[in-house]
């Protein structure tokens, strides 16, 4: 099932989702929530790609979403294991505790 959707509306939806995810990254201190917000942002980008691909009627948009998804999967895997390491070394999941790279 399909229908001609206005491209502007689709892209605007993607923009709103992206900014929401950005807000989440900036506000939350717990690293799990930060990762979740990053997921939100990635998803929003994928939506934008698919909308654009549907506009031109080509498969390229979906292929880009495919790659973004792959990358998000790998990133999540490594990121979550890093979260485990963080819990082991610092004893908490607060990003403020991890400031050893302070200048």
């Amino acid at each position: 099932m399909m229908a001609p959707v206005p491209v502007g509306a689709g892209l605007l939806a993607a923009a709103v989702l992206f900014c929401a995810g950005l807000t989440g990254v900036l506000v939350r201190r717990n690293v799990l929530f930060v990762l979740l917000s990053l997921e939100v942002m990635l998803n929003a980008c994928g939506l934008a790609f698919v909308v654009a691909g549907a506009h031109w009627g080509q498969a390229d948009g979906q292929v880009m979403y495919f790659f973004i998804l792959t990358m998000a999967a790998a990133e999540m895997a490594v990121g979550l294991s890093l979260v485990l390491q963080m819990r082991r070394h610092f004893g908490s999941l607060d990003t403020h505790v991890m400031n050893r790279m302070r200048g």
Partner: protein
Amino acid sequence: MIAVFYISAAIAVAATVLAITRTNAVHALLYFICSLLATGVMFFVLGAPFVAALVVIVNAGAIMVLFVFVVMMLNVGPQTAEQERILLGPRTWIGPAFLSGVLMIELAFVLVGYRAGTTTAPIVPPKAVGMALFGPYLLGVELASMLLLAGLLGAYHLGQGAMKSKEPGA
């Protein structure tokens, strides 16, 4: 059909906003999964059934499930929720909200001003996607597989050490 698109867009936005404002980790995750499902519906209406399926299977079904497993493992329980509630006062929201608000307004200006019209009617079937993946984007597919291998090895290695000194009962 267009109404379905708008309704699912609204659900996605609402679910995302709820997801990022929850203090309980599991609640946030579940809201996000709901958002992902709404996104899948949007993809379907746009005429991209393949990625609609991919969202549900991979994004919501694999990545988010992994997330839930880790949250359970780390025992992110009520006391964390309490801490989060304390930390998430209104003062914390002002700056980031302003920043994101400005960005959104700018993006809105850019995107809406670009009068591109509407999407096309025909569906892009999975066959076309497959042909594209094994055609022009073959190199990308190979690179993605290498990326997944790296991710696999990294997760295995990093996760190994973390398991050793876990608190008892994990």
